[in-house]
C-alpha cells in the first residue's frame, strides 16, 4: 500500500487512515492509544460509544455547564418574579403576599429549562470548537465519506510520538483501506 503524500516541503496536519467498518475503527483507535499516541481523533458518520472507551473519552463538562445554567435560570426566574412584584411594582391586591411563591413557580421552571437548554447546546458547540467551517481534515478528498459511510482515524502531527514515516507505517499496520497525509 502506498501512502498518499502531500509534498515533502510543507508541514502536514497529520496522517489519516480510512476504514471500512466501525469495528475496524474502534480496534484501530484502541491500538493507536496503546501505541502511546494522544493527539489523534476518530471520525465516524454516527456516534460510536465503543470509541469513547477505546479513546478514553469522558468529558462531562457539558453536563456541569448545563447544571450551572439551570441553577442560574432557576434563581434568575424566581428573582425576576419576586423583584418585579415586590420591589419594582408592589401592588396590594386584597392583602395577598407580595412574594407569592406558588404563583412564581411556572415562570421559575420555564426560565430554568430555557437557560439550561441553551447552555447545553451552546457549551457543546463551543467545546467542540464549532462553528469552524474549515478544518485541515477536509483536505483529504475521501474524507467526504466520513459523513456518509466510511470511518477515519487521524494521528495529528503535534503528537510527541509523531514521525512522518513511522506513523504512516504504524497506520498501515492497522489494516486500513487507505492511508493519506493531511495537508495543513
Amino acid at each position, binding site marked *: 500500500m502506498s501512502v498518499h503524500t502531500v509534498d515533502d516541503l510543507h508541514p502536514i496536519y497529520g496522517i489519516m487512515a480510512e476504514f471500512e467498518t466501525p469495528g475496524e475503527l474502534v480496534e484501530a483507535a484502541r491500538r493507536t492509544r496503546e501505541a502511546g499516541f494522544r493527539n489523534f481523533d476518530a471520525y465516524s458518520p454516527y*456516534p460510536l460509544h465503543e470509541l469513547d472507551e477505546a479513546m478514553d473519552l469522558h468529558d462531562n463538562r*457539558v453536563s456541569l455547564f448545563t447544571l450551572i445554567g439551570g441553577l442560574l435560570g432557576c434563581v434568575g426566574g424566581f428573582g425576576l418574579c419576586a423583584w418585579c412584584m415586590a420591589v419594582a411594582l408592589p401592588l396590594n391586591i386584597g392583602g395577598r403576599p407580595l412574594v407569592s411563591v406558588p404563583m412564581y413557580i411556572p*415562570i421559575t421552571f*420555564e426560565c430554568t429549562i430555557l437557560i439550561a437548554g441553551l447552555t447545553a*447546546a451552546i457549551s457543546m*458547540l463551543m467545546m467542540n470548537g464549532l462553528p*469552524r467551517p474549515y478544518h485541515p481534515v477536509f483536505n483529504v478528498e475521501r474524507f467526504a465519506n466520513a*459523513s456518509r459511510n466510511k470511518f477515519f482515524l487521524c494521528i495529528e502531527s503535534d503528537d510527541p510520538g509523531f514521525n512522518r514515516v513511522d506513523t504512516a507505517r504504524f497506520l498501515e499496520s492497522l489494516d486500513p483501506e487507505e492511508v493519506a497525509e493531511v495537508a495543513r
Partner: protein
Amino acid sequence: MQQPVELPDRIEVGPVIDEGHSLASVSDKIGGIVLKRKTTLGWIFGFLISFVVLQNLMASATWLFLKGVGVWGINIPVGWGFAIVNFVWWIGIGHAGTLISAILLLLNQSWRNAINRFAEAMTLFAVMCAGMFPVLHTGRPWLAYWLFPYPNTMDLWPQFRSPLLWDVFAVSTYFTISAVFWYVGLIPDLATLRDTSKKRWQQVTFGLLAMGWRGSARHWQRYEKASLLLAGLATPLVVSVHTVVSFDFAVSMLPGWHTTIFPPYFVAGAIYSGFAMVLSLMIPLRHFYGLQDVITMRHLNNMAKVTLATGLIVGYGYIMEAFFGYFSADVYEKFMIWNRMTGPYAMFYWTLILCNVITPQFFWFKRIRTNVFVLWCLSIVVNIGMWLERFVIVITSLHRDFLPSSWSMYWPTVWDWLTFTGTLGFFMTCIFLFIRVLPSITIFELRMLLPGARVKEPIAQ
C-alpha cells in the same frame, strides 16, 4: 443508543428499517430527496395550494390590523373565540413532536429515529401558528412586546401571578428549546449534505449551516451528552407547556374551566392530537416520496397505539368533567355541563364525543392499525375532534355565564375562518418547504439502526 430490542410481537408488524439498506444507501436516499431529486409536479401543486391558502392569513390579518378585533365574532361574554380555540389546538399538535423526539429518546425507543426530525419540524411550525393567535387577539399586535418584562418609561411590570403571563414564558421557552433541539439534531445531517452535494451554492449553504461538523469522536461524545440533556429538559417542558395552557382556564373561576383535571387531560389531549397530525402528514409523505422502507408499518402501528392510549385518557377526561359537574352540587356547574350536552352547541359536543371517544376505539384492531388509508382517514377525524374539543371548552363555558341577561351566542365570522384556514396554509407551506430543502428523516440515527452498524466484537479482547 443500544441495539434495538426486537420483541416477537413487533416482528410481526415489521422491522424499524427494511432489509437491504446500507450506510451509503440510507444517506443517498434521504439526502437525495433534498439534493438530487427534481422538484416534482406534485410538490409544486401542493406548495402552491398551501401558499394560496396562506394568503387568507395575510388578508385577514391586514383587515384585523385596520379594523380591530371587532371583525371577529367575539363578544361579551364570549371574549375568547377562535383565537384561543386555535391557539390551544395548534400548540397541542406541536406536543407530539417533542414527545417523539425527547421522551421516546429517553425511553430508548429506536423506532422514533425515522420520524423524529419530521415530527419536530411539525412542532416548530405548529407553535408558530399557535403563537400568532394570542398576538393577534391582543388587538394591538404592534405592542406585543409589552407581554415581556423589560425596563420601560412607564415603570410598569407584567403581572407574574397571571397564567396568561406564564403562557408567554412557557410558549416562548418551548419554541426556543424545540428550535435548538431540532437544529442540534440537524447538524450531522447538514454535514452529510455538504459532503454529498455537487453544486457550489449547496456546498456553501450546507457548509455554513453544518458549522464545520466533521464527525469527530470527541465531538460525538459531547454531542450525545448535549442531545440527551436537551431531551431530558424538553420532557418536563412539554408537559409543563400544556399544563400552563390549561391553567389559563383552570385558574379562572368559571364553571367548565375551574377543574383540577385540566392539566393532565390537556396534556393527554395534546399528545393525542399531535400523534394524529403526525399520522396525517407522514402517511402522504412516505407514499409520495417512497419512504415505506424507513417509515415502516411498525411506525404507523406504534403511533396508532399511542393515539389509542391517549385517546382513552381524553375519554376519561370527558367522563370526569360530566361527573364533576354532577357531583359538585353547584347549580352553575350542573347547568354548564347540561348546557354543553343539550344546549345550542350540543351538536358540537356530541360530534366531539363521536370523533374523540368512538373513533380511537377502532385502533384496538390490528387490521385497522395496519391499513394505511383507513388510518389516515381516522387521524383526520381525530384532528377535527380535538379542534371541536377546544371549541366546546372555550365557547360553551363562556356563552351562558352566571346571569341569563348577559347570555349570548358566539359564531365565527368570515375573518375568523380566513385566519384559521390561513394558519393551516402557513403550516403546510412550511412543511412543504421543509421536506424540499432539509432532510426530513434523521440520517445519522437511521445509520445506527442498520445491521452491521454496531461494533460486533467487544473491544477488550
